[in-house]
């Protein structure tokens, strides 16, 4: 089993270490301090072509310390938890703080906002697994994939990972919280060949509970299905057409929204959605809600990276922006209150429009289904969007042939307003949960 030994005792020890650091910071004259102490253990196996390829044992730990001298701030981190090493790390943070400038917006979050009531988010479920069993599962996934079709000629491997971690965050406002979580996954990446052209695709399942993982066979089968259907891909003539984003890619469209609404891009005026609270940026039917307290969900957290209690809230209501993603620093810069998003967003749920994936294909009629995006071509300041893509050409709501070596381009502002439907085929593997998203029109560059 991949588990932190004596987890309760370890948690208590880390909370005590955190108090030691906070006290030592005070002794050095710091007006405030915060500390994070983390430890994790994991097993990762990878098989390829029916044999074990890699067997890795992970053991990571780190302490990160921030000290404030009034409005001056210093940060240091170390992987050594001996009291001597922690004191040295603290000295390094204090040295840094001597040279950074006064910034009136620096400081801990308001003590009133700290998470007070413990919430059990049910995130720690060690997997009763050893290396042999993990290898067996990975072999099952790869074996299923390789047997799926005669055109599957090679493999990029299948892997099983299990990780258990524990973390303490404490600050000199009296907060000292302990979290522990597990993460397990099974993935398979397979190669198919037709004539001389090869294609590779993959599939994975992930959860904090091993029992919630999809079966090895279904992961292998899906990896194979996705790979084989790409064979014979070709470019298409340059055109304008609607684009349907498969759920695993639709998530990215919401990810760009999170970046654009983050406090840092707002106060730096580096966002295509500057000052957008109250503005209509999506069609009216679209709702996006942040839900940090869903048991066992990948983005769940009781408090953020500053100890601030997280809470459920609307991000987009009837297509209008309800708020930004703020930590205490960006909140003070903007004259707002933190939203408990220091360290990022938690679970984000996009409502669907009661349309299945098939319904969305029908609704699109003629256009492009995108199943892979490569490259990062997004300008967050202007919203200009241009990325490499692969997928399928669709006519009369039906997949015609695989498409590759094309780009899709538009501007995110237009893409958001042009959303015509969100599928019920929700991908629950990540903290952003959405179904397929249909965008009315983009430029497809090809031959």
């Amino acid at each position, binding site marked *: 089993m991949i588990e932190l030994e004596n987890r309760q005792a370890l948690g208590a020890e880390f909370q005590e270490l955190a108090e030691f650091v906070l006290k030592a910071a005070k002794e050095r004259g710091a007006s405030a301090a915060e500390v994070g102490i983390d430890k994790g253990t994991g097993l990762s196996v990878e098989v390829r072509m029916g044999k074990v390829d*890699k067997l890795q044992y992970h053991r990571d730990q780190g302490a990160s310390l921030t000290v404030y001298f009034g409005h001056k701030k210093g940060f240091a981190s170390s992987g*050594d938890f001996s009291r001597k090493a922690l004191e040295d790390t603290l000295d390094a943070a204090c040295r*840094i703080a001597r040279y950074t400038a006064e910034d009136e917006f620096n400081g801990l979050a308001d003590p009133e906002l700290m998470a007070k009531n413990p919430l059990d988010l049910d995130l720690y479920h060690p997997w009763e697994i050893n290396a042999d069993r993990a290898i067996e599962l990975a072999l099952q996934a790869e074996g299923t994939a390789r047997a799926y079709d005669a055109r599957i000629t090679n493999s990029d491997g299948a892997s099983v990972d299990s990780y258990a971690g524990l973390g303490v965050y404490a600050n000199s406002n009296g907060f000292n919280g302990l979290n522990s979580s597990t993460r397990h996954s099974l993935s398979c990446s397979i190669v198919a060949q037709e004539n001389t052209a090869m294609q590779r695709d993959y599939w994975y399942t992930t959860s904090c509970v091993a029992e919630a993982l999809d079966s090895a066979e279904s992961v292998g089968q899906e990896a194979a299905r996705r790979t084989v259907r790409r064979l014979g891909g070709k470019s298409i003539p340059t055109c304008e057409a609607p684009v349907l984003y498969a759920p695993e890619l639709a998530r990215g469209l919401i990810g760009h929204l999170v970046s654009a609404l983050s406090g840092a891009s707002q106060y730096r005026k580096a966002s295509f959605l500057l000052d957008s609270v109250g503005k209509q940026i999506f069609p009216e039917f679209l709702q996006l809600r942040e839900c940090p307290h869903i048991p066992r969900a990948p983005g769940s957290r009781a408090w953020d990276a500053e100890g601030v209690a997280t809470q459920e809230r609307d991000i987009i209501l009837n297509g209008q922006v309800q708020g930004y993603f703020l930590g205490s620093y960006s909140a003070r810069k903007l004259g707002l209150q933190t939203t408990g998003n220091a360290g990022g967003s938690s679970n984000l749920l996009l409502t669907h429009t009661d349309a299945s994936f098939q319904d969305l294909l029908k609704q699109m009629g003629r256009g492009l289904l995108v199943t892979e995006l490569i*490259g990062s071509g997004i*300008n967050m300041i202007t919203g200009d969007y241009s990325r490499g893509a692969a997928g399928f050409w669709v006519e009369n709501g039906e997949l015609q042939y695989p498409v590759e070596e094309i*780009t899709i381009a538009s501007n995110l502002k237009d893409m958001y307003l042009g959303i015509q439907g969100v599928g019920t085929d929700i991908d629950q593997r990540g903290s952003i949960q959405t179904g397929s998203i249909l965008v009315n029109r983009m430029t497809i560059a090809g031959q």
Partner: protein
Amino acid sequence: MQDAMAYARVEFLTPSGLNEAALDKVFAELLSTDTTLADLYFQAARYESWGLEEGIVKSGSYSIERGVGVRSVCGEQTGFAYSDEISLPALLESARAARAISRAGQSGKVQAWKVQLPARHLYGLSDPLASLSEVDKIDLLQRMDTKARAVSPYVKQVMASLVAVHEIILIVDEQGRMTADVRPLVRTNVSVIVERNGQTESASSGGGGRFDLDYFMNNNRADEFAEEAVRQALVNLDAQAAPAGTMTVVLGSGWPGVLLHEAIGHGLEGDFNRKGTSAFSGRIGEQVASKGITVVDDGTLEKRRGSLTVDDEGTETQCTTLIEDGILKGYMLDRQNAALMGTQSTGNGRRQSYSHLTMPRMTNTYMRAGEYDPAEIIASVDKGVYAVNFSGGQVDITSGKFVFSASEAYLIENGKATRPLKNATLIGNGPDVLTRVRMVGNDLALDAGIGVCGKDGQSVPVGVGQPTLRVDGLTVGGTAA
């Protein structure tokens, strides 16, 4: 003069009492009768960074990463464990875990321990973190801020950063070789946001390498980075929609060499080719580029960001010819993949840290110069795109499709670079893109020392370079008809 091994002894071996007898014990635990390769990778790295925003240095950080990775390889199979504690008991525990990859009986003994001294050193031993005072580091950032704001009244935000890393490594392998390296790395970056008539744009510039921080103070380099960032951002303010479709593209010299890194570099890494999953697998000896084109991966350039005196397996780096006169010549290899392919490592075995596994990775990848004047190349194009700067790229090594995103580009009309174009992604097919190169410039340049390459979740510093190139037929992902 002290050598790297002296640093490594003081850092790793002496304090933990790891003498030859202790290493014997570790390898006795690690080696089996079927072990083909095994190593210990000791690493101690110190990082310091400073960040300026809104005219002041708001943030600074210091961190230490220290530990040892233990690897046992039996043919294609790898066992790996690591520890952040450097001691005999921790090493023995890691060795037992790593050795679990083998089902064979224990064997092992290392014949004799011998220190390997590289024939040449590509960078100094001195600590770049200590190469400038804190006050000077902050002055340097403020100087870039002041310069950027002085260049144009449209500059609204300046963000600048300065990073220095000092790393000591020691590799001990199953042949008894002990190799040490001390690696400095510095990097600065300046990003600006400009606003004019309600329209906003951004750009960034920077550089670095394996030397001291005073490099940035010399020859007004910091000022040049600030000026360059502002210049590019202002150009982008005037940019219009890029065209969409397949057309002739002229790529500028230097950093646009990211084309080579994505289009052919990754596809020529040994692991993919040993496994047969690369679009270049089994194609040695075939023509994959136009005649006259030669591409190398060169880890031996003094003080470059992608250079290493020895790689992370203790192999001295070399200049490996990947493509010669258009013909595919060779792959980039680490020890494991070289052994499996019946050849020698090319000194491309790299890892992000002690807690990551070694893989074949690029160092500095570039194309040698050709004969054309860059102006002549642009003049030869009736209609196309001239892309001078890029923000990065990605490749699917199996299908060979790659992208890279232009951050500064111009339309070419009747042999002249005219209007600036908005950012657009370019897509092509790795195995044939270099066969579409019609002209190679005489202006080979390497990038300024900014490259980071990601593979399998591991990041390593790399370099790229090329002369100006004319490519007939890349797909440009704009929005204009």
